[in-house]
C-alpha cells in the first residue's frame, strides 16, 4: 500500500512536471511541419482522418424512438493500442449518455443516411461512415461523429475514436489499392491507417445531393 501510495505520489509529481514542461518547451521549429489526424476504428479496421478536413467532433447517439443507443465498450486490442500510443480512452463512461447529441432517423432511400442531428440551431445530416466505405457493420454501434464540409456541415458517424495522432511530414503515403475516398495511408508508430478523404466524401455527397435534391438538399435545409 505504501509503495502504491509512493507510486501515485510520484505519478502526481510526474504529472506536475509534464504540465510544467509544456510551458517550458519551446515552440516548434520553423521548418518542422506537423500534421494532426484523428484515429478512427471502423468495423475493426484502422482508419484516420486529417484534422484539417474535420470541422468538429462530437458524441452521438442514434435515436430511433425505441431505445437509447448502446455504447460499445472498447475491445482489449484497442485499449492496448491506445495505451501503446499514449492516447486517452474516450467513450468508457456511460454516465453522460443522456447528454449525447441525438441523431434522429428520417425516411430516406439512402441506407448510408442515419438521420439528422441538431447542431447550433442547424440540422446536420449524419451518414454512416462504414456504409460509405462499403464496410458491413452494425449502424447502431456508431457513437462518434466527425463534422466536415465547407458550405454545409455533414456528419460522419463511426464506432470508435482511437486517438489523436500527430505526425511529421512524410507520414502520408499513397495507398496501393486506392478507392474514391481512400487514396492514402497514414504510417504511425509502426502501423498504417487508411486515410479517409472527408472532402472527397463531402463533394460526392454534395454532387449526389445536387442530382437528387429531395434527399441531401432537404437534409441540408
Amino acid at each position: 500500500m505504501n509503495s502504491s501510495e509512493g507510486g501515485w505520489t510520484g505519478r502526481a509529481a510526474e504529472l506536475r512536471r509534464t504540465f510544467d514542461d509544456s510551458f517550458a518547451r519551446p515552440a516548434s521549429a520553423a521548418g518542422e511541419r506537423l500534421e494532426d489526424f484523428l484515429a478512427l476504428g471502423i468495423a475493426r479496421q484502422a482508419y484516420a482522418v486529417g484534422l484539417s478536413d474535420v470541422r468538429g467532433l462530437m458524441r452521438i447517439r442514434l435515436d430511433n424512438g425505441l431505445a437509447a443507443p448502446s455504447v460499445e465498450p472498447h475491445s482489449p486490442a484497442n485499449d492496448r493500442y491506445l495505451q501503446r500510443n499514449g492516447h486517452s480512452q474516450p467513450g468508457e463512461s456511460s454516465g453522460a449518455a443522456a447528454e449525447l447529441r441525438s441523431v434522429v432517423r428520417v425516411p430516406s432511400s439512402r441506407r448510408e443516411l442515419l438521420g439528422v442531428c441538431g447542431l447550433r440551431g442547424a440540422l446536420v445530416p449524419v451518414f454512416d461512415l462504414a456504409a460509405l466505405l462499403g464496410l458491413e457493420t452494425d449502424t447502431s454501434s456508431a457513437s462518434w461523429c466527425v463534422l466536415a464540409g465547407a458550405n454545409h456541415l455533414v456528419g460522419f458517424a463511426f464506432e470508435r475514436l482511437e486517438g489523436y495522432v500527430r505526425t511529421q511530414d512524410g507520414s502520408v503515403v499513397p495507398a496501393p489499392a486506392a478507392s474514391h475516398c481512400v487514396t492514402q495511408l497514414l504510417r504511425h508508430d509502426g502501423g498504417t491507417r487508411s486515410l479517409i478523404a472527408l472532402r472527397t466524401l463531402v463533394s460526392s455527397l454534395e454532387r449526389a445531393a445536387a442530382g437528387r435534391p429531395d434527399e441531401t438538399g432537404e437534409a441540408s435545409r
Partner: protein
Amino acid sequence: MTRSWTFGQKIGFGFAAILALTIVICVVTYQAMGDVVETKDRVIERIAGSLVDVERLSSGLNQQIAAMRGYVLSREDEYASELREARTAISQVLERLAQSLTVDSNQRLRGQIQKLEVDYESGVDAVFSAARSGTTTSELVALRRDKVTPVRREIDSKITALTTGIMTAVQKEREDSTRMADRASTLVLGLAVLSALTALALAVFLTRALATQIGSAVQHVQSSSAELQTAANQQATGAREQSTAMAEISTTISELLATGRQIAESARRVAQIAGETSGASRDGDQIVVRARDSIEGIKRQVDLITTHMLDLGGKSQQIGGILDVINELSEQTNILAINASIEAAGAGEAGKRFAVVADEIRKLADRVGGSTKEIRRLIDEVRAAVNTTVMATEGGAKAVDAGTRQFADVTTSFRRITDLVVTTTEAAREIELSTKQQASAVEQVSTGVGNVAQATAEMETSAAQTLQTATQLTRLSHDLARLVRADADPHGNW
C-alpha cells in the same frame, strides 16, 4: 388280554374255575341224591300205603262178617253199628286206593273189588234182614253160603290179584328209581371227569403261562443285571476319572481364585483411574465451554468484518462512480481540446498559439484519462479483493458456525464421555465388588469341589458295591431261571 393278568389273577382264575366245577358237581350230586331218595320214599310210602289199605280192605270185609255173625248170634243192634263203621272204613280205603294206584290194571282190579264190595254188602244186608226177621240159623248159614261166601271168595281173589299187581308196580318203580340213581351217578361221574380235565388243563395253562412270563421276566432280570453290571463298571471307571478331574478342577479353581483377586485389584485401580478421568473430563468440558464462547466471539468479529468489508465494497463502488464522472469530464475535455485544435487549425497562423494550448489541454485530458483508467483498475482490484475477502469471510463465518456446532458436539461428547466415565467408574466398582464376591464364591466352590471329590470317592466305593450286587443279582436270576424252567442250562439260559 390274559397277558395283562397278574400271576395271582391267573392262579385265582384257575382255582375259581375248579371251585365252580366242584360246586356244580356237588349241586348236581345233591340234586340227584335228593331225587333218588324222594323217589324211593315215594315208592315205599305208596307201596306200603297200598299194601296196608289192601290189608285194611280184607280187615273191613272180615269186620262185616264178624258184625254179621255177632248180630246173628246176639241180635243186638251194636253189630249193626259195627257193620256201618266197617263199611265206612272200606269206602275210605277204596278212595285212597283210587288215588294211590298208578297202574291201570290195579285201578281196574280196585273197581272190580268196589263192585264186588257192593254185592258183598247186599249179601250181608240180606243176612241181617233175615236174622232180623227171625230166620233160623241154618237158613242164615245157607243164605250166607249162597249170598256172601262166593262174593267173598271172589273179592279175596281180586285182593290177591291187586296185591300181586301192587308188588309188580313196586318192582317196576324200584327199577325206575334205580335207573334214575344210575343216571345221577353217571352225571356226577362225568362232571368229576370234566372237573379233573379242566383242572389239568388249567394247571398246564397256568404252568406254561407262568413259566413263560416268569422266564421272560427272569431274562429281563438277567439282561438288566448284565447291563447294571456293565453300568456299574462304567460308573466305577467314571468315578475314578471324575476323581481325577475333580483334582484338576480344584487346582484350576485355586488358580481362578488367585486370578479373581488380581482382577479385583485391577478393577480397583481402574475405578480409581476412571474417577481421575471423570474429573479430567469435567475440566475438559469447562475448557470446551470457554472455547465455544471464544468461538462465538470470533463469529461475532467475523460478522463485523463481513459488514465492514461490504461497506468497503460499497465505498469502492461509490469511488468507481466518482471515477466515471472524472472519466466523463476528461473525455469531454478531450473532445473539447480536439475541437479546439480543429478550430485552431482552421484559424491558420492566428490559431497556432491557441492550438498549443488546446494540444496541452488534450494531453492533460489524456493523462487524466490514463490515471482514471489506472485508478479504475485499482478500484476494480480493491472491489475484487473485497469480494474475495467477503467470500472468504463468509466462508470463515460458515467455518466458525461449523466449528461452533462441532464444539457443541464436542461439548455433548465431553458430557457423554463424563457420563460414560461415571458409568465406567460405577461398572469398575461393581466389577471390583463382583470380583470379590466371585472370589468368595470361588472359595465356596473350592470347598464344594472338595466335597464333590469326597462324594466321588464314596461313589466309587458305591459303584464297587453296585457291581457286587449286580453280580449277585445275575447269579440269583440264573437260579430263578433254573427253578422256573427245568430245561434251562446251568447259566440260566433257555
